[in-house]
């Protein structure tokens, strides 16, 4: 009821605070472990054991430990039936709620690409192989992409309506960006945003068939890069009208100041080679934030380590920014698709809070084609006031968000 009244109550855009965050990724469970992994430039990519990869080009991925996910079992009814994507979301959201128990979102916006895909795979294999289908109703009920979101909300006592944005690899950043616009417009005071995805055989084989994934180390922006590795995880951020957050005495981790989205129509799986789509997303984020390229201190690149993505993104970054430090943290944890943008937003949050530049590991040789200031192999201490996070996806969808450090 109050929404229509609220959204017309002011003409000035609201400022948007991040008041809490939660994360589960190959880098660790929670902000503290994630920070530790980033500080030590840990390579968290490991051999895939979840399904057979012996005939695949790529045999590794960034993976979340199953036994640690078990910790959320038993906390909600029928939790053993839930997909592991639900358990990732539950643990990420529980961390957020622990920081801000009073945060009651009016809307939830989550990015995802695959839902409970591995349950769909089990169902199909059982159907075609005359397998045991007794659990099929459970697999089917837990397959839809919105299910892990509602499971997490239920586990944490949250009942906000939710959108699941499936804009391929840009989904997580799109979710944060849309949530930011919703709060900035005054339509909502509090929005929960984030993303999740769990490793699935079908998706793994899909990227392998495209030869987009690598049999080697993931080396974003390196001259000898040979492709991506997949990852998985979940991250959520509490977005809140800055004034109301301060009024209720909430701690503010950072401010989101801009969002840009663009669509390039070059190819369903490849970016426009000049990087125009990526450039437009970054330009629109800068414009939205009323800041210039010179104000940016750190760029968390999409940086999948595929030949085409990094070339296009590299061109766009070097055309817009003059020597701004760049890293792709996918080098440490893999590409978690729908979760990537939200996990990388958390990485930016940590960089702003702890004043350092996360590393782009496995980097040995600069690419002659692009002029970038890569944060190679080791993190660096730095003054970081404004950070930019990029995500670009299949279908030519591109998104960038800008975050700023806020003094207490």
């Amino acid at each position: 009821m109050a929404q229509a009244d609220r959204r017309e109550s002011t003409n000035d855009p609201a400022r948007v605070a991040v008041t809490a965050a939660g994360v589960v990724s190959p880098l660790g469970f929670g902000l503290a472990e994630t920070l530790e992994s980033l500080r030590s430039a840990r390579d968290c990519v490991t051999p895939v054991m979840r399904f057979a990869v012996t005939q695949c080009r790529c045999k590794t991925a960034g993976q979340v430990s199953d036994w640690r996910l078990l910790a959320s079992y038993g906390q909600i009814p029928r939790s053993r039936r839930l997909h592991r994507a639900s358990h990732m979301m539950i643990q990420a959201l529980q961390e957020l709620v622990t920081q801000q128990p009073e945060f009651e979102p009016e809307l939830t916006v989550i990015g995802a690409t695959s839902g409970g895909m591995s349950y769909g795979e089990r169902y199909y294999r059982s159907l075609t192989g005359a397998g045991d289908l007794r659990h099929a109703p459970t697999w089917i009920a837990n397959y839809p992409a919105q299910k892990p979101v509602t499971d997490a909300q239920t586990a944490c006592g949250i009942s906000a309506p939710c959108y699941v944005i499936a804009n391929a690899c840009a989904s997580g950043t799109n979710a944060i960006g849309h949530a930011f616009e919703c709060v900035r417009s005054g339509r909502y005071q509090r929005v929960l945003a984030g993303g999740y995805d769990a490793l699935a055989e079908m998706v793994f084989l899909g990227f392998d068939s495209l030869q987009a994934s690598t049999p080697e180390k993931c080396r974003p922006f390196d001259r000898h890069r040979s492709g991506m590795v997949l990852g998985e995880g979940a991250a959520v951020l509490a977005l809140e009208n800055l004034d109301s957050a301060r009024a209720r005495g909430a701690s503010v981790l950072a401010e989101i100041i801009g969002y840009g989205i663009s669509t390039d129509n070059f190819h369903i799986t490849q970016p426009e080679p000049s990087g125009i789509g990526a450039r437009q997303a970054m330009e629109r984020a800068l414009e939205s934030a009323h800041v210039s390229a010179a104000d940016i201190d750190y760029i968390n690149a999409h940086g999948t380590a595929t030949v085409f993505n990094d070339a296009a993104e590299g061109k766009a970054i070097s055309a817009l920014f003059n020597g701004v430090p760049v890293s792709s943290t996918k080098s440490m944890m893999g590409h978690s698709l729908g979760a990537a943008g939200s996990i990388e937003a958390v990485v930016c949050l940590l960089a702003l809070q702890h004043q350092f530049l996360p590393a782009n590991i496995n980097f040995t040789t600069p690419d002659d084609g692009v002029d970038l200031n890569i944060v190679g192999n080791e993190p660096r201490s730095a003054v970081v006031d404004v950070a930019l996070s990029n995500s670009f996806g299949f279908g030519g969808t591109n998104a960038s968000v800008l975050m700023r450090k806020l003094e207490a």
Partner: protein
Amino acid sequence: MSLAIVGMGWVTPLGTCIDSVWERLLQGDEASATTISEEFADRVYSVFRVPDSALKGISHPRLRRASAISRFAAAAGLHALESAGVKLESQNAERIALIFATSNGGVCYTKRFYHEIVSTGVQAASPLLFPETVFNAPASHLAAMLGMTGATYTLVGDGAVGLAAITMAEELMANESLDYCLVVGTEEIDWLLCDAYRRWRFLRLAPPIEPFSNQNRGMILSEGAGAIVLARDGLVTIERAPPGGYFNRRAEAETILRRILGDLSQIEIDFVISSANGTFVDHAESQTLQELVPNALVYTGKPALGESGGAGGLWQIILAAQALHSKELPPVLHADESVRLRLSLSRTPVPSVRRAIVLGCGLNQQTAGLRLAVL
């Protein structure tokens, strides 16, 4: 801020022209069921399919390898833009947003891609099929066909996702850099979906869909797309589009619907386009409607058109807009006359109609509602 519907297009099992499908609905027509089978299974299901003739004239290099869902979406989206008189050119390419709504996405190619892996081995994974399995492939194809360069979103959800997409459109249009938002809901059918919904106990093996029956005999799946173009001014407006809700257990659906309907029905409502489809949804909606809008006429198009997830929500909005415009409601098919609702059981004139509610209750926890008004 309210938005106006300035263009509409749909691809349905009853055809594609807005006016001719509407006329058929007014006459009490329903889609013809066909059967769908699978080589590795004995069971056969009934579905409502889009006739092949419906997609004539829709061609583009991006659609050469695309699956049915992308073709349905393209056809509906192009019809909607044409009816709105909106032409995309380089000057306005970023001033039009696109929101896609779907429940199941490209299920046909997803199954085919995985089937080849399961039956032949990992080496059979097709790099041509894989991109078409991604949820946002249809949106990408339509954006490319139209030359859109701005915001494009794909929303995934259950049967309420089409209505949620309208709420999201309203949020996007708060940004004055946008002139229009094209919202497209789309779905395709595969045997696998039918089997999954049967195991979930939502599917009936053969028509009809019997709305508001106490028996909950189940639904029949259908395919197609619906599209609407939203602008800031027009005759039929989306007067209110609150964010929906979700329920943990089916028994809670009624509570969430009551909250949504309570919000929407604070002024007089002439009719409600319900999402009743022969499942538990019907009881939840029926109870809520009886309680909160007992005098409103109620119509559901699902017995005639089938249950089409992401497309279904857009079809409901188009039905509401058509009824507000033409001041008539079609008959609800196969309804039990003992239902304690004011059902539109025959072609019903509604001469002084002003406002309508569209209600969506999905099978997987999501609910949403909108209020439309005609000037």
